């Protein structure tokens, strides 16, 4: 006992030595775990604090390492987009360019990792923006697909979610359950029905084949319904007693309260469709109509110097949304998270 009292004021390591001073019989009589508990119980506040501080330091280092790994690809893309064409060819020629240099530029055997360009130039951007229209067309394609899908999916979903949230019933619960199952189905499953209907309607190969399934995707309905169900029901009832019609309740009371939810869901839909690959591959046959997400991978080896600049241009919109709406994104993820409500 006295040993322990002494140990109070010293570091845990010395405390250990006091433990070893206990006779073997006594040591065997209690489990090692209870000993460890015992040790901690005698921790003074200062040793605990010390340990916590050490732990915090260790965790900060881990976080920094993680952060470096997470940021590296993005930063690399960004900084390399300011390099001159010859520098990019020199650095990455070993990968992409098999026959473009004609011996004029030095092509290193392996890739050089360079974060800082020798000379900062906007010439790649200028080329992309003013001299190679095909990238802009593909970029525009992406916008043309994504914007209507985000807007109209949200519109259809607002109506439907209101329908789900305002009055509940057994039938509706059942339908909502079906929506959840549809949301959880991977593209490998849903694309087949999508294709069958689109070919039946004769819209395969047109933009409608991407738009319509996107607009009616049950994803936003599922998310927004969960959001709306948190609005106190008494608000609707009060409005109803005051003589508001359903449309008024929907547009004047429900929608303004859902602004945050709409923003969160919009970001999630945007990410998903900005990156779509499966749908265009199956539902479009004309490569002219492909969005940038598919097109950039088919970049010409001769144009590799443009790749980083195009990638950055492609990244700008999502990054802006992210920086302005990170909290909405987090909120959206959390709403998606409460699968069981």
């Amino acid at each position: 006992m006295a040993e322990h009292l002494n140990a109070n004021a010293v570091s845990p390591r010395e405390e250990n030595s006091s433990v070893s001073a206990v006779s073997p019989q006594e040591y065997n009589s209690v489990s090692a775990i209870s000993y460890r508990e015992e040790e901690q119980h005698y921790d003074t506040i200062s040793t605990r604090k010390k340990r916590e501080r050490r732990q915090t330091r260790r965790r900060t280092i881990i976080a920094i390492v993680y952060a470096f790994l997470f940021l590296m690809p993005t930063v690399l893309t960004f900084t390399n987009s300011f390099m001159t064409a010859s520098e990019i060819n020199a650095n990455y020629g070993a990968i992409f360019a098999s026959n473009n240099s004609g011996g004029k530029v030095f092509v290193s055997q392996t890739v050089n990792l360079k974060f800082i360009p020798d000379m900062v130039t906007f010439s790649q951007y200028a080329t992309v923006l003013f001299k190679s229209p095909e990238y802009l067309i593909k970029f525009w394609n992406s916008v043309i697909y994504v914007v209507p899908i985000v807007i109209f999916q949200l519109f259809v979903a607002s109506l439907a979610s209101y329908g789900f949230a305002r009055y509940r019933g057994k039938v509706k619960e059942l339908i909502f359950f079906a929506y959840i199952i549809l949301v959880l189905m991977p593209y490998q499953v849903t694309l087949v029905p999508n294709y069958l209907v689109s070919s039946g309607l004769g819209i395969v190969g047109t933009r409608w084949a991407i738009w319509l399934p996107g607009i009616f995707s049950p994803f936003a309905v599922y998310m927004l319904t969960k959001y709306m169900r948190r609005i106190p029901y008494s608000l609707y009832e009060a409005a109803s007693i005051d003589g508001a019609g359903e449309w008024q309740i929907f547009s004047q009371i429900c929608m303004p309260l859902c602004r945050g939810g709409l923003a969160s869901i919009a970001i999630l839909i945007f990410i998903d469709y900005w990156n779509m690959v499966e749908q265009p591959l199956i539902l479009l046959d004309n490569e002219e109509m492909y969005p940038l997400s598919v097109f950039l991978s088919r970049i010409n080896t001769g144009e590799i110097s443009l790749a980083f600049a195009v990638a950055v241009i492609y990244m700008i919109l999502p990054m802006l949304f992210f920086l302005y709406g990170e909290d909405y994104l987090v909120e959206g993820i959390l709403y998606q998270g409460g699968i069981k409500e």
Partner: protein
Amino acid sequence: MVGDLDRRLRRNAAQAAQADMQAAAQAGMRASARAGARADAISRGSSGRNSKKGRFSSWLFLAPSLVGVGLFFVLPFGLVIYYSLINNPVQHRFVGLHNFITTWNNNAFMLAAKNTLFFSAIAVPLAVVLSLWLAVIMESRIPMKSTFRTFFLSPMMVPIASTILVWQVLFDYNGLVNGWIGKLGIDKIDWLKSSYAPLVIIILFLWKNLGYNMILFMAGLSSVPQDQIEVARLESASEMQIFWKIKLRYLSSTIMFVIIMSLINSFKVFREIYLMTGDYPYDPLYMMQHFMNNTFQNLDYQKLSSAAIIMALFMVVVIGLLLMIEEHLGRDLEV
């Protein structure tokens, strides 16, 4: 000495029992609150019944979505089932499970199914463990927390095309990673065309998805009742014990959800693989969606339909199982 310990242990046990009772009482209170909510719901139902007009109009609100979902997802899925049961779209002869058996015995399908399963079986647990680790780190008192959150979440917003560009730079035969290991005297590896190929994709998957999962886990961790943790601390439980015995128990539903989401996202990894390697990648990278794509190209409706149905059944069974496990784990918890 031993007697002292003994006494302490016994006291611990007694206090633990007390804490249990407290928790039970709280649970009871929550249950009664829930009953109250149910009563509320019932009264809500009756008020709905009073206004038939409102009830009808709520169906009008639902109509556009119902029509769209019905037209693009539900009805054609019926068609998919129909196609999976007939011999071909011309003769419409009913052949039972014949199509499923042919698809199942198809080499490409088997390869795709095996690869996809293998990938998910490795990537999903890794994603869960690593993102939980990240969330625990983020839960402690590290400086600049929100900046770190932004950093960890940022890969989610990096468009796929930008990602694969970097991955090509990293893992090409003449790429960065080979340059690094070359300095260590290791031979170059053609990453995407070797048995290491799934590893490259798993790293990409983790890079992209850890932030998303981390957010869910952070929310889960912050909803663990603080009083229980404090009691445990007073009882001199170690941080490890608190994590394994308390926090993890309360996280069970979050873990299940993260597993489900990671599983779904792991099926989306086709995007990256396709953009890096095209229609016919090295064998271990041939995924379910590759099979679907290539089947789409010759429009074999029978094969497509049965593959889609097999996959749908698989998802329903797996998600059902996960939810059942979660129910089982969480039945004595009231969060």
